[in-house]
C-alpha cells in the first residue's frame, strides 16, 4: 500500500497535460493494474465482482481491458479497501431527499492525492497565483459539516485556488447584490475566479439577474462550473446558450466547464477554449457501446468509463458511469493540449421495468 501510494504521489509530479494518449497509457497502465490488484486484495466485494467478470483483469494489456464496475454500485454497496471506520472522510453524492447517495471512503493518502491532482490540473488552467473568488452558492452549504456532500466538497476543494472568498447567495439562495458589488469594487479590474455548480449558476445567478432586469459586470472574471447538465438538459439549454447567458448577465468572458464526480474526486476533466473536455495525465475516458460495452471508435456516442490513478482507499479507479459522451479525438485538439478530448452528451435514460411481480409496490 505504501509503495503504491508513493508511486501514485511520484506520478502526480508529471505535467497534467504533458502526454499524448499513447504515452499516457504507457505510463499509466502499470499503476492502474496495481490498483486493480490492490483493491482485489483488500476489498472482498470488489474481488467477488471482478473475479468472474474479468478473469484476466489484473494484468490488463491495455486500458480498455481494465475491469470496470458500474458507478451505481457505490450507492448500493459499501465499497472500501480500508476498514470503513478508519476513513478520515466519507464523501457522499448530493442526491435529493429520498435518493440513495454514493458513499466514498477516503484515507489520508487518497485525500492528499486528490488535492494534489486537482491543484496540478487547476494550476494549468488558472495559473499559479490565487485569485479573489466568488462562490456562486450559499455559504450554508459548507457550514453543514455533518454531510460532506459533493456540493460542499466541491466548493471546499476549489476554494484552495481562490483568496478573499465571498459567497453570492444567502442561506435562502437569494442573490446578495450588495456584497457582490462591494467584492467587485474591492477587486476592481483584477482577475476574479467564479466557481459554482452549473444549475446554481443558471437558476440563481443568470436567470435571477434576468428576472430582476439587472446585470453585473466582471469582464476579468473566469467562471469555473461543473456538476452536470442533467437539469439544464431537461430545460433544453445547451452549453452555448449557457455561455452566452453568463456573458450577457455577468460580463464574464471566460467560462470553463469541468466534468467530475464524487467517485473520482480530484482527477477532473476541464473544458478548453475550443469547448472540449480534456483528460489530464491522471485519468482517462473510454467510450463504450451503451448496450454491449464494446469499445466504440472516436466520434461515436457511447457510455463513458473513467479511469483514474487516485482512488486507493476504495475501488473506484475504473468506473462505468451512466453518462453518455463522444471522444472527439486524441492529441489533435486545436487548443494545443495533447491527449484525449471529448464531450458529454447526456445521461442514459431511465426506463420502467416491467414484469409479473410487485402489484403493491407500484
Amino acid at each position, binding site marked *: 500500500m505504501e509503495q503504491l501510494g508513493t508511486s501514485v504521489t511520484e506520478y502526480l509530479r508529471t505535467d497534467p497535460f504533458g502526454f499524448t494518449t499513447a504515452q499516457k497509457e504507457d505510463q499509466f497502465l502499470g499503476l492502474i493494474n496495481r490498483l486493480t490488484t490492490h483493491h482485489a486484495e483488500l476489498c472482498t*466485494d470488489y474481488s*467477488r*465482482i471482478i*473475479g*468472474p*467478470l474479468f*478473469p484476466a483483469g489484473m494484468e490488463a494489456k491495455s486500458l480498455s481491458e481494465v475491469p470496470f*464496475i*458500474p458507478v*451505481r*454500485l457505490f450507492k*448500493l*454497496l459499501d465499497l472500501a479497501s480500508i476498514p470503513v471506520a478508519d476513513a478520515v472522510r466519507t464523501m457522499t453524492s448530493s442526491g435529493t431527499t429520498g435518493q440513495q447517495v454514493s458513499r466514498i471512503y477516503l484515507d489520508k493518502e487518497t485525500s492528499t492525492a486528490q488535492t494534489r491532482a486537482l491543484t496540478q490540473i487547476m494550476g494549468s488552467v488558472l495559473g499559479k497565483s490565487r485569485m479573489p473568488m466568488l462562490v456562486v452558492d450559499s455559504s450554508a452549504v459548507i457550514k453543514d459539516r455533518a454531510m460532506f456532500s459533493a456540493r460542499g466538497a466541491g466548493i471546499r476543494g476549489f476554494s484552495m485556488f481562490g483568496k478573499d472568498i465571498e459567497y453570492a447567495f444567502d442561506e435562502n439562495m437569494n442573490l446578495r447584490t450588495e456584497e457582490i458589488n462591494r467584492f467587485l469594487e474591492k477587486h476592481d479590474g483584477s482577475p476574479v475566479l467564479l466557481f459554482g455548480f452549473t444549475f446554481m449558476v443558471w437558476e440563481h445567478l443568470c436567470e435571477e439577474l434576468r428576472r430582476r432586469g439587472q446585470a453585473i459586470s466582471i469582464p476579468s472574471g473566469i467562471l469555473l462550473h461543473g456538476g452536470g447538465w442533467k437539469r439544464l438538459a431537461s430545460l433544453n439549454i445547451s452549453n452555448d446558450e449557457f455561455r452566452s447567458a453568463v456573458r450577457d448577465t455577468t460580463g464574464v468572458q471566460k467560462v470553463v466547464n469541468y466534468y467530475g464526480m464524487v467517485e473520482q474526486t480530484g482527477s477532473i476533466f476541464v473544458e478548453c477554449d475550443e469547448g472540449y473536455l480534456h483528460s489530464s495525465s491522471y485519468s482517462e475516458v473510454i467510450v463504450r457501446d*451503451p*448496450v*454491449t*460495452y*464494446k469499445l466504440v471508435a472516436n466520434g461515436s456516442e457511447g*457510455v463513458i468509463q473513467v479511469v483514474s490513478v487516485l482512488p486507493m482507499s476504495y475501488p473506484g479507479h475504473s468506473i*462505468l458511469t*451512466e453518462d*453518455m459522451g463522444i471522444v472527439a479525438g486524441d492529441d489533435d485538439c486545436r487548443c494545443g493540449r495533447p491527449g484525449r478530448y471529448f464531450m458529454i452528451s447526456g445521461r*442514459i*435514460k*431511465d*426506463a*420502467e*421495468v*416491467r*414484469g*409479473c*411481480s*410487485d*402489484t*403493491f*409496490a*407500484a
Partner: protein
Amino acid sequence: MTPSRHENELEFDEVSGSVTAVLESAPLRPFAEPVMSFLTALSTTIMKDRDSRRMPDLVSFGYWCRRANLERMAGRYVFDAPVVGRGLAFHIPPTNVPLNFAYSLVCGLLSGNGNILRMSSVDAIEVSKAIALIDSVLAQKEHKTVRDMVCIVKYGHDDEVSSYYSRLANVRIIWGGDATVLHMRSLPTGPRTVDVAFADRTSLALINAAHVNQSAEDELRTDAERFYVDGYTFSQNACSSPRLVVWSGDETSVADAKARFWPAVNAVALKRGEIEPIHSMNRLVELCQTLVATNAITDVHGIQSASARVSISDVTRWQEIASLRFGTFTEATVRDPKEIDRLLDNKVQTLGVMGFGSDELSRIAESAARGGVDRVVPVGTALNFDLVWDGYDLIRTLTRAVSVGTGG
C-alpha cells in the same frame, strides 16, 4: 372518467363501467355468444386502430381475441352438464405487465362472469389506449349485455376497498406474485369465494445441442429470434421468461452449440434495437450485486454483449440467482433430456423446448410435469397467454359445474 364515487364511504374511481351494473348482471355460460361477439368486435377495433399499431403488446392482444382463436379455444371444451360463470370475478392484475389486465378480463368474460378489475394506475400508454378501445366497443348498443359485465376501478393500496370487493366476489383472480397473493389472502372474503392465485414463478428453456449444430444458417436465425422473444420480452421480468438455459448433449456438442447459438441471439438482439442502455446497465448492476451476495456464480461470459451467461457451481441452485434479468441466462448441461427433472420444482412454471422430436418431447413433458412444471411449450411461445395458465384451467376454475340428476 367518472368522478370519484363514494360507496359506503369507500373511495375509488370508476374508470370504465358501473359497479352496480356488474353486481346486477347474471352469469352466462362459457363462450356465450354476447361475449364472443364483443371480443370479436374488440379484436377488429384494436387491429384497425391507428395508434395501436405502434403498440405491439396491444396488437398481440387484439390478434389473440380474434374470432378464429376464440372458436379454437372454445372447441377444446365439451361440457356434459350445465356450466355457468361463478358470478362476480374480482381481478387484481399486476401493474408492470401493462396489458395483463386485458387478458384477465377476457378470461372472466369467456367463463361467463361479471368482472371488477382493480387498477392501481392507468397511466401506461397501452393501458389507457386499451381501456379507451374497450369502452368504445362496450358503448355500442349490441354489446349491452357485456357492458354490464365489466367495471374497471382505480384506487391506491386501500385494503378497505379491496376487502369490500373480496367479500362480494365469487372468485378472485390475483396476479402479482407471492407478496400480493399473501396480502390479498389476509383480507376477509365471502365464505364461498374461490381464489385463483398467481404466485411467483420462474421458467427455463431446454435446447437440443445437436439440433443447433445441425441447423442451417437461416434456421439458426429463426431459432435465435424465437429465443429472443422469450428471453427479452418485458426485460426478462415475466414469470414465463426463461432464466436458465439447459443444453442437452455431450460436452463437445454443447460447447459447439453455445458457440453458434449465442452470437446468433446477440445478432438478433442488436438488430431489433430494443435493448436500451439502461437495460444493459441494470443487467450489469444486478449481476454485480448478485456476485457480492452469493458465492454460487463461478463464471460469467458475454458481459460485453447483449446477453450475459452465468455458470454456477451447483446448477440445482439456479433459482437462487433467477432474479437476474435484462438478458442474463444461467447455463446448465444434461446428457439426457430426461435428467431435467432434477432442476425442477413447483416454483417452475414454463419449460420452453427447442429441437426435439415428438417422441422425445412427450418423454420430456412427462418428466417435467412430474417435476412441477405447468407448461411445456416451444421456445418462442413462452409468453403467449393461454386459457390454461400456471396450472389452472381458467375456464373450468371460473365456472360452476351443475350436476343434474336424472331422477332414475
